[in-house]
C-alpha cells in the first residue's frame, strides 16, 4: 500500500496535495461503505413495517419479497414467530433470538450476525395479524420448495396448493422436473393439474380431471365441484360435456373413498373415547371389584395424577418431551401413596361395610378437592403437550389421526395388559386374588391380608393416578377434574361386570364406540342420553353386567 502511495505521490508531485487527500479519503471511505444499494433498499422497506397499519404491512411484505434479498426468509420467519422488533432509541429493526428472554439478544437483519443485547423495555415488537401470517406462510413456503428436506418440500407444496396463484404455479412448474421425491412430485402434479383446469383446451382439462381423480383432498373436490355447478342462466361453469362427465365421475369416486375413510375416522374416535373410559375404570375395577370398596374419591386420585404431571413439568421446564414419561411413574407413586394412606387410616375400619366406604370416601374427595384448591389455587393449571404428542398422523388427505388420542389408546392397552400381568403372574397379584376370594383361607395360608389390602388399594389408586396423566393431555387440569369422570367410571365398571378387568375393557370401548357412532346423527347430548338408557336396559337384561362373576356368590342366605 505504501508502495502505491509512493507511486501516486511521484505521479501527483505536480498535482497538489488535494488529489492525494481525495484518494486517501476514497481508500478509507470505500471499505466502510460495504452495504450494497440492495441492502439499503431492503433496510428502508423493512423500516416501513414499524409504523404501518396491518393493511399496509401486507403491501410492504410483497415489496420485501420482490427484492430477492437473501435475508427475506429469516426476516419472514422471525416476523411470523413474533421475533421482529425495533429499537426505540434509533428505530433500527432487529431479529430477536427468543422473544421471552431477558435481555433480548439481537440479530442484525442484513448480516444475520449477533448485534448485541437490549432490555425488553427498550424494544417494541412489530405485530402481525392472521392475514399477514397467511402472507408470510405462503412466502416462506415458496422458499421451502428448494429445501433439501423432503418433508419440508411436501409441506411447502401443500401450503401453496391452498391458494394457488400464477407465481406459485410458475414455481411449481419450475420445480417439477427437478423433483426426485415421489410424494412431493405427486403433490406438484396435483397443483399443476388444478391450474390446468383453467386451460382453454378441453383435452388438457380432461387430462387434468383424470390426474385429479385419485386425490382425496377437500380442495381438489371443491374445485371439481365448481366445474359441474349450474349457473342461474342454465349454462355450466364447464362448457365441455365430456369434461363435465369426467368431473362428476371423479367427484363420485372421491366421495365414496372419503366416506369410507370418514367411517374409519369415526371408529377411531370411538376407540379413543372408549380408551379414556377404560383407563378411568380399571383402577376402580380393582378397588371396587376386588375389594368391594365404593371409592368416591377415585376421581380425585385421577386429579392428583394430573397435578403430578403439572408439577413434573414445573420441575423440568426445559424437558417437556420426557416430562410425560417421568410423570407416569411419579403419578403412580403419588396417587398410590394417597390410596395407601386412605386405606390405612380410614378404609380398613370399614371392611364389610361397603356403603359406609361410600360416605367416608366422599368426605375424602371433598378434602382432596379443597386441598388442591388451597395448594395450587382454584384456577386451572396449564399442562403442556410435548411435541411428539401434538399434531396428527396424516394417513392420507382424508384421514388424519391426532397423536395424543393415538398414544392414549396405545397407553391404555399397555396399562391394561400390565395390570393383567401383575394380577395373574406376580406374587402380589396372586395374594390379591387369594384375599379377595377367601380372606380367611388366605390368612390361614400365611398371607398378610392387611398388607395385601393396602397394596391392592394402592394399586388401584396408582392406576387412577396414571389415568390422570393421560387426562391431563386431553382436558382441563383443575380441582373439578375428578367430578367430571366419577359417574362414567362407575358406569363402565358396572357395565363390564364388577370385578372383571376384561369386562371393563370391552365395556368401556363399546360404550365409547356407540357414543361416537351416534353423535353425528343425534348430537352430543342425545347420544350420551341414549347410551345411558341403553345401559339401564342392558343391566336389566343382564343384571350382573357383561361378564358376571361365575358361580353363586355369597348372596344366598
Amino acid at each position, binding site marked *: 500500500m505504501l508502495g502505491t502511495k509512493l507511486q501516486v505521490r511521484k505521479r501527483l508531485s505536480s498535482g497538489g496535495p488535494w488529489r492525494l487527500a481525495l484518494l486517501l479519503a476514497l481508500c478509507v471511505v470505500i471499505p466502510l461503505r460495504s452495504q450494497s444499494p440492495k441492502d439499503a433498499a431492503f433496510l428502508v422497506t423493512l423500516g416501513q413495517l414499524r409504523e404501518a397499519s*396491518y393493511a399496509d404491512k401486507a403491501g410492504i411484505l410483497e415489496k420485501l419479497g420482490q427484492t430477492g434479498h437473501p435475508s427475506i426468509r429469516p426476516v419472514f420467519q422471525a416476523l411470523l414467530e*413474533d421475533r421482529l422488533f425495533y429499537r426505540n432509541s434509533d428505530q433500527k429493526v432487529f431479529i430477536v433470538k427468543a*422473544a*421471552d428472554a431477558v435481555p433480548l439478544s439481537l440479530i442484525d437483519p442484513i448480516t444475520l450476525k449477533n448485534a448485541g443485547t437490549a432490555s425488553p423495555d427498550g424494544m417494541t415488537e412489530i*405485530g402481525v*395479524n*392472521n*392475514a399477514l*401470517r*397467511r402472507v408470510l*406462510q405462503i412466502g416462506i413456503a415458496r422458499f421451502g420448495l428448494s429445501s433439501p428436506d423432503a418433508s419440508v418440500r411436501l409441506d411447502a407444496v401443500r401450503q401453496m396448493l391452498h391458494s394457488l396463484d400464477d407465481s406459485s404455479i410458475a414455481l411449481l412448474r419450475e420445480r417439477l422436473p427437478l423433483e426426485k421425491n415421489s410424494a412431493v412430485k405427486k403433490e406438484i402434479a396435483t397443483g399443476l393439474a388444478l391450474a390446468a383446469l383453467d386451460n382453454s383446451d378441453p383435452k388438457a382439462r380432461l387430462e387434468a380431471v383424470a390426474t385429479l381423480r385419485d386425490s382425496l383432498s*377437500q*380442495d381438489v373436490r*371443491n374445485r371439481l365441484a*365448481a366445474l359441474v355447478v349450474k349457473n342461474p342462466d342454465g349454462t355450466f361453469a364447464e362448457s365441455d360435456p365430456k369434461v363435465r362427465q369426467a368431473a362428476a365421475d371423479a367427484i363420485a369416486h372421491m366421495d365414496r373413498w372419503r366416506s369410507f375413510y370418514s367411517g374409519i*375416522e*369415526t371408529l377411531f*374416535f370411538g376407540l*379413543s*373415547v372408549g380408551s379414556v373410559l377404560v383407563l378411568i375404570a380399571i383402577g376402580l375395577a380393582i378397588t371396587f371389584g376386588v375389594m368391594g370398596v365404593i371409592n368416591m374419591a377415585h376421581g380425585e386420585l385421577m386429579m392428583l395424577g394430573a397435578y403430578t404431571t403439572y408439577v413434573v413439568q414445573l420441575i423440568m421446564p426445559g424437558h417437556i418431551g420426557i416430562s410425560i414419561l417421568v410423570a407416569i411413574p411419579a403419578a403412580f407413586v403419588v396417587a398410590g401413596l394417597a390410596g395407601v394412606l386412605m386405606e390405612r387410616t380410614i378404609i380398613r375400619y370399614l371392611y364389610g361395610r361397603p356403603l359406609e366406604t361410600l360416605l367416608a370416601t366422599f368426605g375424602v374427595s371433598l378434602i382432596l*378437592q*379443597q386441598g388442591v*384448591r388451597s395448594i395450587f*389455587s*382454584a*384456577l*386451572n*393449571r*396449564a*399442562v*403442556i*403437550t410435548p411435541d411428539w404428542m*401434538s*399434531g*396428527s398422523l396424516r394417513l392420507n388427505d382424508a384421514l*388424519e389421526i*391426532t*397423536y*395424543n*388420542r393415538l398414544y392414549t389408546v396405545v397407553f391404555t392397552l399397555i396399562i391394561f395388559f400390565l395390570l393383567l400381568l401383575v394380577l395373574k403372574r406376580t406374587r402380589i397379584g396372586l395374594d390379591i386374588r387369594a384375599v379377595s376370594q377367601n380372606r380367611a383361607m388366605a390368612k390361614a395360608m400365611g398371607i398378610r391380608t392387611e398388607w395385601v389390602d393396602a397394596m391392592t388399594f394402592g394399586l388401584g389408586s396408582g392406576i387412577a393416578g396414571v389415568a390422570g396423566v393421560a387426562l391431563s*393431555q*386431553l*382436558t*382441563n*387440569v*383443575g*380441582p*373439578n377434574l375428578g*367430578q*367430571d369422570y366419577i359417574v362414567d367410571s362407575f358406569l363402565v365398571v358396572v357395565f363390564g361386570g364388577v370385578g372383571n378387568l376384561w369386562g371393563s375393557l370391552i365395556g368401556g370401548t363399546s360404550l365409547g364406540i356407540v*357414543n*361416537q357412532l351416534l*353423535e*353425528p346423527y343425534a*348430537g*352430543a*347430548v342425545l347420544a*350420551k342420553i341414549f347410551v345411558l338408557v341403553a345401559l339401564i336396559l342392558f343391566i336389566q337384561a343382564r343384571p350382573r353386567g357383561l361378564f358376571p362373576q361365575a358361580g353363586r356368590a355369597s348372596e344366598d342366605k
Partner: protein
Amino acid sequence: MKCKSWLAVPGLLLTGMLFANVAAAQDNVIKVGILHSLSGTMAISETTLKDTILMMIAEQNKKGGLLGKKLVPVVVDPASNWPLFAEKAAELLEKDKVAVVFGCWTSVSRKSVLPVFEKDDGLLFYPVQYEGEESSRNVIYTGAAPNQQAIPAVDYLMKEVGVKRWVLEGTDYVYPRTTNKILEAYLHLKGVKPEDISINYTPFGYSDWQARVAAIKRFGSAGKKTAVVSTINGDANVPFYKELANQKISAEDIPVVAFSVGEEELSGLDTKPLVGHLAAWNYFESINTPANKAFITQWHAFIKNNKRTTNDPMEAHYIGFNLWVKAVQKAGTTSPDKVIDALPGLETPNLTGGMAKVLPNHHITKPVYIGEVRADGQFNVVWKSPGEVPGDAWSDYLPGSKDIEADWVHLKCGNYNKITKKCSGQNYK
C-alpha cells in the same frame, strides 16, 4: 336422665336454627357483600373476582373508608350451586345487612338471586358479559351486553377478515343460545345465506371434541373463508382448543373468536398452538395505559404473585366498585334505594383510557377491543371501537325485544314495550 337426653339433640338443632338468624350489630362500619363461588365448577373464574373486591376494599380503606366509616367485606361461598346462591344472597341482605353485593357469574346464578334482591331491595353489581334480555332496578350490569361484544366481533370478521361462512359453536345454555339467536338474525340482515351458517350446541364440560372439530374443518373447507364464533363455556374451551391445535386448524385457516376466553382462561392452557385466535372484550391486560399499569402493579402486590393475570370481569368490578363509592358519596348514605337513584349518569374512568358511564337502563358504556392470542398468553389488539359503546339490554335484532326498552330514570321500568306502552315483568315499586 332419659328425658333430658331425649331433648338434647332436637334442642340443639332448634337453637342452632335460631342462632343462624341473629345478626351481628355493628354501626360504625359499612359491610360489602361478596357473592362469588369459591368451590365447585365456577370457582376457577370467580375466586379472582372475590380477591379483586377485597383489594378494592383495602384500597378504599387506605383512603379513609367511605363516609368516614371503614369498609368490611363479608365473603360467602355459594359453591356454584344455584339455590345456594339465592340462600347466600338472602343471608347477606337479611342477616349480615350488607350495603351492596358484588357477585354472580353465570346467568342462572343471577336469575336465582334476582327475586331476593328485588324483594329485599338490595343492590348487586354484576361484572360478567351476558345475554341481555334483562334490566332490573336492583342490578347494575358492568359486564358487556351482546351489542358490546358479539356484534362488533362479527362486524370485524365480516369486514376486516372477509368471512363468508360462519360456525356458531356454543355450550347449551341461555347465554350462547341468546347470543347465537341475535347473531343469526344479524347475519341474515347482512345477507348471509342460511346454508352458510352452522349452529351447534354441546353440553357443559364437553371434552370429546374430535368429531365436532372434524365437522368444523369440513364445513370450513368449502372454499369460502370460514370463522367460528365460540360461546363455549369455561371448562370445555381447553379440550376444544387442544383439539383445534391437534387437527391443525390454525387461526389463519379458520379463526375462532371467543367471548368467554380471557387472560385467565389462557393461563391454564398451552397457548403456542392458539396464536392468532381471537377474543372480543372491553379490556385486555396488554393495553398500555397508565391506569392499567397501575392496576396491574397493585394486583400483583395484593395477590403476591407477579404471574397472575388481569381480565375483563376484574375491570368490570373495578369500575363497579368506583361507581358505587361515587354514588354513596353523592347520595350521602349507603341505603341501596338512594344509591340506586344516584347511579344513572355517574361516570368513572375505566382502565383503558376512557370513561364508563351508568346509563338509565343500568348498563354502562364500554369500549370494544378485538385481540389475537399471543404465545405468551396475552392478547394483541387488532381492532378497537372508535369510542365507548352504550350497553343495550334489549337487543334490536330480536323480534321479541326490539320493541322493549329499559329506563329506570324516566319510565321507571325495566321492560317497557314501546308499542303497547305497557310495563311488564320486572317492575317493582
